[in-house]
C-alpha cells in the first residue's frame, strides 16, 4: 500500500487522498485543505498535509507533445524526470537542470524550483519552464508563462504547491550528442582551496559540485573532492553502459549511519584513488549515484533523517562555511552526504525560489531528536549571520520567523495561495 511520507521518512497521514488521473477534471471539493503530491522525494514536510487532503498526481503521467527538432516537451505534471530522460536521451536531448534524483515529478520540480550541478551556468529548473497550466480550486485554469499571467508564473515556480495544481508544463530541453559526460575529480585540502579551485574551474565547466568530509578536524577541516563534468561531444565509439539497480530490501531497526560508519566512510572516500585526467561517465551514475540503490533512505532506520541545506552569501565564503563545519564537528553528528556548490547569478522567475548567489551546503543527519534540532538551530544562526537561506524542499524544522526572513516575498506570495490549498510546511512557517 502506498504510504504518503516524505523522503526523510516523516509521516503525516492525510485524511484523504484523491488519485488524479485526468487533467481535464475539476479538483475535488473538499471540506479540508488540499495539496498536490508528486513522488514524495522532498525531504521534509513541504509535500505533506497532515489532517488535510493530498492530490496524488501519479496518474497525471502523460506526455502531450515533444518536438525532437526544438527540444520543447509538454507533459502532465506527474511525469517523472526519469520518464523524460528515457524519452529524450535517445533522441539527443537532456534535462536542462536536474536534481540529484531523477525520481521527482515535473510538478514537484517546479513547485520546489529545484537546482542541479549546473546552477552556475543554467540557473534553476524554473528558468527552463516555458509555460504551464494552473488549475485553481475555483475551477479556473490559467496558462502561465513569463509573458502571460507572469505573476502567477512567478508565484507558482518555487511556490511549494500552494498556488493551485499544475496540470501540465512545457519545458525546453538541452541538446546532447550522447548519454556520456567527461568528468574529472580533484581533491582539495580545505575550504580556502575549494573556493580558489571553484573560482578557477567552474567557469570552464557545465557541472560542478564538491563532496566534503565534514568529520575531518584541524588542518583537514573542509577537505573534500571537487567533481566537474561536461556533456561529451560526438564520439565515434561509446563505452558500454549497463544500468544496475538494487534496493535496500528492508528498514534496519536502527540507523546504519553512525559515528563509526561515517568516520570510516569519509576517511576512505577522501583518500580513494582518483583517476588522473578526464573519465567518460554515463549520465546515470554521474547525476544519480543514489538512484541505483532504490529506497536508500531506509538505511537511516525507522526514525529517518533530516537534510539541512542552506546557502550563504558569496562574500561570506570560507568563513561562513568554516563556522558551519565547526558547529557540526562540535556536535559530533556527521553527515556522509555533505555536498557543497557555488550557485551562480542567474535569477529564477520564482518569487520564493531558494537558489541565490553564494555557496550552498547540503547535509544529511540521522534523526537523533533534540540533539539534531539543537544543531540545526546553531547552524541557523550562521546562516542568518551571513545573508543565507534554508531550502524548504529539504526542511522540516526551520522556525517561522526565519522563513519570512529568508523569503521576504512571502507576503506578496500569500495573496496567490489558493484558499483551498495548504501544507504542513506552510502552516508551520505561517504560524504566528
Amino acid at each position: 500500500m502506498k504510504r504518503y511520507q516524505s523522503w526523510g521518512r516523516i509521516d503525516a497521514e492525510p485524511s484523504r487522498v484523491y488519485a488524479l488521473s485526468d487533467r481535464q477534471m475539476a479538483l475535488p471539493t473538499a471540506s479540508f485543505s488540499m495539496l498536490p503530491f508528486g513522488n514524495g522525494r522532498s525531504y521534509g514536510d513541504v509535500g505533506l498535509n497532515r489532517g488535510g487532503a493530498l492530490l496524488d498526481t501519479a496518474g497525471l503521467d502523460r506526455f502531450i507533445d515533444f518536438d525532437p527538432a526544438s527540444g520543447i516537451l509538454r507533459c502532465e505534471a506527474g511525469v517523472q524526470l526519469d520518464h523524460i530522460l528515457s524519452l529524450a536521451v535517445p533522441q539527443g536531448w537532456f534535462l536542462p537542470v536536474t536534481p540529484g534524483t531523477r525520481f521527482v515529478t515535473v510538478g514537484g520540480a517546479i513547485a520546489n524550483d529545484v537546482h542541479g550541478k549546473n546552477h552556475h551556468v543554467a540557473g534553476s529548473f524554473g528558468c527552463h519552464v516555458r509555460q504551464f497550466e494552473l488549475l485553481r480550486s475555483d475551477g479556473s485554469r490559467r496558462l502561465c508563462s513569463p509573458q502571460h499571467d507572469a505573476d502567477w508564473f512567478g508565484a507558482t515556480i518555487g511556490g511549494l504547491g500552494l498556488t493551485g495544481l499544475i496540470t501540465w508544463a512545457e519545458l525546453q530541453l538541452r541538446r546532447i550528442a550522447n548519454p556520456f559526460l567527461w568528468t574529472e575529480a580533484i581533491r582539495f585540502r580545505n575550504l580556502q582551496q575549494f573556493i580558489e579551485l571553484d573560482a578557477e574551474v567552474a567557469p570552464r565547466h557545465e557541472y560542478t559540485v564538491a563532496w566534503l568530509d565534514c568529520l575531518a578536524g584541524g588542518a583537514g577541516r573542509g577537505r573534500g573532492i571537487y567533481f566537474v563534468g561536461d556533456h561529451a561531444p560526438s564520439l565515434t565509439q561509446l563505452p558500454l553502459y549497463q544500468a544496475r539497480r538494487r534496493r535496500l530490501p528492508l528498514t534496519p531497526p536502527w540507523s546504519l549511519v553512525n559515528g563509526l560508519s561515517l568516520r570510516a566512510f569519509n576517511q576512505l572516500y577522501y583518500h580513494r584513488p582518483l583517476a588522473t585526467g578526464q573519465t567518460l561517465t554515463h549520465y546515470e551514475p554521474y547525476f544519480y549515484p543514489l538512484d541505483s540503490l532504490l529506497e536508500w533512505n531506509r538505511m537511516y532506520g525507522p526514525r529517518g533523517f533530516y537534510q539541512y541545506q542552506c546557502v550563504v552569501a558569496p562574500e561570506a565564503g570560507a568563513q561562513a562555511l568554516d563556522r558551519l563545519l565547526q558547529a557540526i564537528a562540535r556536535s559530533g553528528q556527521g553527515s556522509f552526504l555533505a555536498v557543497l556548490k557555488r550557485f551562480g547569478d542567474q535569477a529564477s522567475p520564482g518569487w520564493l525560489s531558494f537558489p541565490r548567489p553564494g555557496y550552498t551546503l547540503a547535509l544529511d543527519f540521522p534523526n537523533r531528536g533534540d540533539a539534531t534540532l539543537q544543531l540545526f538551530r546553531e547552524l541557523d544562526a550562521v546562516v542568518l549571520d551571513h545573508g543565507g537561506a534554508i531550502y524548504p524542499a529539504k526542511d522540516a524544522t526551520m522556525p517561522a520567523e526565519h522563513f519570512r526572513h529568508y523569503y521576504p516575498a512571502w507576503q506578496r506570495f500569500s495573496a496567490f495561495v489558493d484558499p483551498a490549498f495548504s501544507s504542513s510546511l506552510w502552516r508551520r512557517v505561517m504560524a504566528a
Partner: protein
Amino acid sequence: MKKILIVGANSAIAAAAARQWVGQGVSLVLAGRNPDRLSALAADLHVRGGSAVKIVEAIYDATDRTAHAALVEGAWNALQGLDGVLIAHGSLPDQKACEASVAQTLMELETNALSVIAVASLLANRFEAQGRGVIAVIGSVAGDRGRQSNYVYGAAKGMVGLFLQGLRNRLSRKGVRVVTIKPGFVDTPMTASFKKGALWASADQVASGIVRAMERADGEVYLPGFWRLIMLIIRHIPEAVFKRMSL
C-alpha cells in the same frame, strides 16, 4: 504483432499495455468512451512511439448495440487488418444498487458481458478467415465463483470466461489464440476507494503480463500468477460451506 485494437483503452491497465506496445513499434486503434481522455492517451502514445507507429482514436460506447460492428469494421480498415485485440472495457458495478434495480443489473451485464461477446464474436470471424490473430479479454478472478459481495460483476465475467472457452475450442485449429486474462486486485482508478494490501498489483505489472500473454499464451492467464492457486482453493470450497461465508 504489429497492429492491435484496444477496446476500453482509457482503462488504466489497457493504457499501460498500450505504452509498452508503442515502445515495440506496434500500431494501435484506441477505442473508448471519453473522447478527452482518449486524445490525451493518443497524444502520449504519439510522443512515446514517434512517427513510426500509427495511433487511431475511435469513440465507442459499449452499451450501444449498433457500435460493435462499426468499431470492428473501422479499426480493421484504419490499420488495414489487425493482428490482435485486447478487450479491456468494463465497469465495477455497485452490487447493492444492482440488487435494488433490475435495470441496473441488466445494464451492467450489457457493459461487462454482452458487449464483450459482441466484439469478440465479430473479430473471431475475421481472424478465423485470415487464419491468425489473438483475442485477449480482461476477465476477472471474480468470474470464478459467485460471491455475495459482487455477483453481478462475477456473473458477467463468468459468462465471458465460458464464452471464451468455447471460442478457444472452436478456433484452436484455426491459428487463432484466445486468451482470458484474470487479474486479481489491481490498483487503478476503478478501485481507488479500496484499502490496498499485499495482494494488490499495479496496472503496469498486469499490463506486462498481458503483453507477454498475447505473445504466446492460449488459455486462461492469472495475473499475478499466484491467483491461480487462490482461485483453485476458492472454487473447491463445497457450496454448502461457501454459501455461509462472506467473501
